[in-house]
């Protein structure tokens, strides 16, 4: 595949979201909308390289896809459905050339795709496919599932939306906070899946970009929501470190060992300025973003404000009690007050986290720093038994070897 094709594909899909959403609003038919936009893509492939990308690709895609949808409705429908199709055609014809004249339907599409009556993996796939415009192949690769499996997941989700009458709308006020939480959870999962992907550096960065793009979209369509802003800040501050997270061999580089000049400082500045807006009611994303900001602000690892990070984890634990948050808090306390304090906090977490490789990795690290080499070796071995990520395995093996040599 050529770069020119890749560039065209990218600008096309970034402009296709509104067309998909508008067509689904009018026809209620995900497949029809996708096919019409796919047809528009074929037209773009033929015309854009010679005539150039249109000045307003979004408007071009909306118009072209709308015309394709009208053609399809005229061709395919018979009998009783024909009258319904005629009404839809009439409504489609009102979708103007100027996209600014039509309401942006992407927010309702997003709420529909992230509806709690859909399985989580279906929500993620559907959001990336219809709202972000990624291809089935791209999503399948990013989530390490065979393409047919992902295709089935999408088909089933679309059928459920239709058969169970999942509404296509922005939820009413009383449901909005809860449903928005659901949308943000899907975006954060997209971000984290990309972040933790076991293979494919490029895909990892792409999923991060995609999640940030979606968070910006929600922020624009639902302006002023603190949780949305906080999630955006969190993603920016974490994504800014992407280039420094692995070395040339693809091995994991710990935060403390990262070359901070390779961090994306423009992205950090943007994340920090979002945080500077403050929050009336700091939620989980906000506290995590503030923790990420503590790291982002430190010019060197040794400048990190660990007492502040420990405090923030304490607040996060109070808001969202979880053993994993406690684990992170213990690690921060260990940095602030010494490894023994951290180890004391880890003890009560063992029953809950005994099968979690990062628990043993964190414990091993504290034992190593406390000079308890034999216990540290044992903990590293336990972590190695439990990890499934190759980069993490190589990292733990290096640590273990260094320790045994010492």
């Amino acid at each position, binding site marked *: 595949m050529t770069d020119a094709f890749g560039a065209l594909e990218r600008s096309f899909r970034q402009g296709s979201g509104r067309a998909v959403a508008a067509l689904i609003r009018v026809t209620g038919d995900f497949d029809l909308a996708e096919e019409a936009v796919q047809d528009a893509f074929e037209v773009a492939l033929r015309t854009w390289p010679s005539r150039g990308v249109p000045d307003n690709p979004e408007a071009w895609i909306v118009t072209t896809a709308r015309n394709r949808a009208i053609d399809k409705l005229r061709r395919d429908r018979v009998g009783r459905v024909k009258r319904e199709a005629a009404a839809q055609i009439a409504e489609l014809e009102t979708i103007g050339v100027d996209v600014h004249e039509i309401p942006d339907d992407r927010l309702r599409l997003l709420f529909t795709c992230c*509806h*709690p*009556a*859909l*399985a989580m993996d*279906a929500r993620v796939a559907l959001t990336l496919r219809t709202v972000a415009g990624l291809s089935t192949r791209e999503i399948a690769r990013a989530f390490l599932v065979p393409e047919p499996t992902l295709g089935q997941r999408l088909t*089933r989700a679309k*059928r*459920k939306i239709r*058969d*169970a*009458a*999942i*509404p296509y709308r922005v*939820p009413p006020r009383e*449901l909005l906070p*809860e449903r928005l939480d659901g949308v943000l959870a899907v975006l954060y999962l997209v971000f984290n899946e990309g972040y933790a992907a076991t293979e494919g550096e490029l895909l990892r960065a792409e999923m991060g970009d995609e999640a940030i793009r979606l968070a910006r979209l929600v922020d624009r369509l639902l302006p002023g929501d603190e949780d949305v802003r906080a999630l955006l800040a969190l993603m920016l501050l974490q994504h800014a470190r992407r280039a420094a997270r692995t070395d040339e061999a693809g091995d994991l580089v710990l935060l403390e060992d990262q070359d901070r000049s390779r961090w994306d400082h423009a992205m950090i500045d943007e994340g920090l300025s979002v945080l500077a807006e403050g929050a009336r009611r700091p939620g989980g994303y906000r506290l995590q973003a503030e923790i990420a900001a503590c790291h982002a602000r430190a010019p060197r690892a040794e400048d990190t404000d660990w007492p502040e990070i420990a405090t923030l984890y304490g607040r996060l634990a109070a808001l969202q009690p979880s053993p994993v948050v406690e684990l992170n808090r213990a690690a921060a306390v260990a940095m602030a007050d010494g490894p023994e304090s951290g180890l004391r906090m880890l003890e009560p977490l063992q029953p809950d986290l005994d099968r979690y490789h990062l628990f043993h990795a964190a414990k091993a690290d504290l034992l190593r720093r406390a000079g308890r080499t034999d216990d540290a070796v044992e903990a590293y071995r336990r972590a190695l038994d439990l990890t499934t990520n190759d980069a993490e395995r190589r990292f733990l093996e290096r640590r273990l070897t260094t320790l045994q040599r010492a």
Partner: protein
Amino acid sequence: MKYALLIYADEKAWESVPHDQRHAIYEEYDKFANELVERGVMRGGDQLADSPAATTVRVRDGQQLVTDGPFAETKEQLGGYFLVEVDDLDTAIELATKLPGARHGSVEVRPIIEG
């Protein structure tokens, strides 16, 4: 005395039944329904959408828990049902949440095939 006749069957197997056979079975259902009407015992009945269209609603500690798919807990048994006609799944879920059964058990919300 009223009775509910609840029909359990393998959806997957049903999908692979050839069209004409399926048609014959539907006719049998129609015949059965007519017999109920003739005998004056018909109190209603519908075909449900397949289980993938189902949504399960529970309420625990005052929190609404909505999950995709049919109810699949063998420790609980079907204990009753309500039939409602509303605009969309959100309204059906809202109503399901209000049932006491949602607090100590589960409520499966399953669309009915209109036909």
